């Protein structure tokens, strides 16, 4: 107790220097929080946007569908399966979907693209990017309804307006070419060229009928989790529970490998940058602690002379590093909190810099408003890392204090 007390008083002997060091540790917390928080928000946003476009955070699909998508590969009894999945822990929604390729045509033009067939009763704007991005008209009311919602750019290419007819051609379950007509009920603008210029949203029943699927068949069930970061662990749980040789259960990292790879590389470069910043901050703390030790060499000599052991002197200086680190963390929390609040509530809007252009990565739209998102585990990780770094920086000065022979220390003035 006495050592902690002495260490605390020693830390405040040079108030200004302590505050400067505390702020540099606090600044480290702020930078780590900003870099980590922004990256987590951006990754989460991209993952959710990607999941909402088709596969979900976790996907139930026929064996081999991801590697070689084809409309003859399909799941059966999807209604029952979806009903079971939606009641699983951590699952927010589960949606049966049919995805495939099609040619979209009008009298004037033909465009190749993708279609997504959904059951509107199970879908919502939150988990379906196309519904969320509706700018004109409406989405069909249920899975038995007719109609199609298409991207605005596709509509422009095909010279279509709401209420006009669209001919779509695809291959059915037997590999036969089939065509059908649907009337455009709505238009969406996601900001992603590939989606806006080549994607159509159909009612599930209509596509099941065209493809020759049974009423309880679909190509996949997209599962949306409350926390996308639990995708892999949830996938593993589902694999244990829904053991069916005809079904493959994949996380978004497997269905969206491009996105997963991009995030991994970006996260790695982010960590490298944070590590370099951490080194700079650590050098600052080391310098302060070393100065503080060197200027008290004589005092340490006295302490050793009156009976303090070198080991206890080491721990005394380490206790000072501990207090210094703790002061830094408190300052860090105080200066980071308003930043986090602002970034969480308002974010930094880069729309004006982007103009009318949208920014996409791996065909996923990046939100021009940059926000921060930190989970408790990240806060603990950042605080622990900065605290650990500050303590590590104190080891050498503490070792040095304990190593100087007392007589050398006493000679120092």
């Amino acid at each position, binding site marked *: 107790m006495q050592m902690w007390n002495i260490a605390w008083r020693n830390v405040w*002997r040079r108030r200004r220097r302590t505050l400067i060091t505390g702020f540099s540790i606090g600044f480290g917390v702020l930078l780590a929080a900003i870099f980590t928080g922004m990256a987590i928000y951006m990754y989460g946003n991209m993952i959710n946007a990607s999941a909402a476009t088709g596969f979900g955070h976790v996907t139930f699909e026929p064996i081999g569908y991801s590697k070689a998508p084809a409309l003859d590969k399909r799941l059966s009894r999807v209604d029952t399966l979806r009903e079971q999945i939606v009641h699983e822990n951590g699952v927010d929604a589960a949606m049966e979907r049919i995805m495939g390729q099609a040619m979209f045509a009008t009298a004037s033009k033909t465009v190749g693209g993708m279609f997504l067939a959904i059951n509107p009763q199970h879908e919502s704007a939150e988990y379906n990017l196309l519904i969320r991005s509706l700018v004109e008209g409406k989405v069909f009311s249920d899975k038995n309804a007719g109609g199609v919602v298409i991207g605005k750019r596709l509509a422009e290419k095909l010279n279509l307006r709401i209420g006009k007819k669209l001919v779509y051609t695809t291959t059915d379950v037997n590999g036969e070419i089939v065509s059908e007509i649907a009337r455009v009920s709505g238009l969406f603008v996601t900001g992603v060229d590939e989606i806006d210029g080549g994607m159509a949203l159909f009612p599930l029943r209509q596509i099941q009928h065209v493809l020759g699927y049974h009423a309880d068949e679909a190509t996949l069930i997209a599962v949306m989790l409350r926390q996308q970061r639990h995708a892999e662990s949830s996938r593993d749980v589902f694999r244990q529970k829904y053991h069916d040789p005809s079904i493959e259960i994949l996380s978004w990292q497997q269905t969206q490998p491009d996105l997963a790879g991009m995030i991994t590389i970006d996260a790695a470069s982010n960590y490298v940058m944070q590590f370099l910043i951490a080194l700079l901050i650590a050098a600052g703390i080391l310098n302060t602690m070393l100065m503080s030790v060197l200027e008290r060499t004589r005092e340490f*000599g006295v302490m050793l*002379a009156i*009976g303090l052991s*070198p080991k*206890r002197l080491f721990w005394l200086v380490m206790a000072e590093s501990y207090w210094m680190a703790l002061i830094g963390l408190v300052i860090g929390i105080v200066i980071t909190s308003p930043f986090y609040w602002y970034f969480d509530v308002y974010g930094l809007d880069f729309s004006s810099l982007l103009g009318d252009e949208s920014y996409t990565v791996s065909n996923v739209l990046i939100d021009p408003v940059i926000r921060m998102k930190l989970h408790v585990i990240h806060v603990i990780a950042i605080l622990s890392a900065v605290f650990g770094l500050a303590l590590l920086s104190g080891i050498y000065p503490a070792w040095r204090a304990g190593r100087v022979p007392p007589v050398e220390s006493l000679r120092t003035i």
Partner: protein
Amino acid sequence: MSQALANDPKREDIVRLVDVSKIYRQGKIEVRAVDNLSLEIDTGDFCALCGPSGSGKTTVLNMIGGLDIPTHGQVFLERRDLASLSRGEVAAIRRDRIGFVFQAYNLIPVMTAYENAEFVLKLQGVSAVECHTRVMTILKEVGLVGLEHRRPDEMSGGQQQRVAIARAIVTRPAIVLADEPTANVDSATADSLLDLMQKLNRQDGITFLFSTHDKRVMDRARRIVRMRDGRIESDEVQG
């Protein structure tokens, strides 16, 4: 050693230096601070090491206190060869058996007078109640009652040196090593500090070994060892 001391059958040494030399290197130059010196200090002695600056007084004190290691020879404290002990064991001896008083007081600046005096007791693991009793007794003895909550920068030189003496004797050490203890205080304070140390020596039997060139200290010492160029020039017992 004086003949009178050597012939005393009751004498028991607390410190013994045998053929001790200490050589420092200053660049390429060798400085022989202590040169083949042998000395015994008896239990209960009140002894002054005298001599001009650079004669090796402080080096001898430092080697007896285990703060410095001789280049040659052996230093025994209570019959234990300090060279055979680990750093931790020497630190424990300093904590439990030796009290230090420095010329420049060397109190710990962030601690009050009470805490400075209490510091070593805490290191020894003495209970809080026992600490309080002993510290207050010592502070009363050195005339610092009422100043126990003052920090070093709030006290005069004499008061700080009293705290330093309190810190040195609160653990009831076997020996107090005092390096020029009166050098930075005025005459009146020096006299009162010497009165105090003499009283502790007579009353509690604590051995005192001073390094000094202060005549007041020499006048009070029972034994005076004069040094020059790292050697003992004379060793006399005063009447």
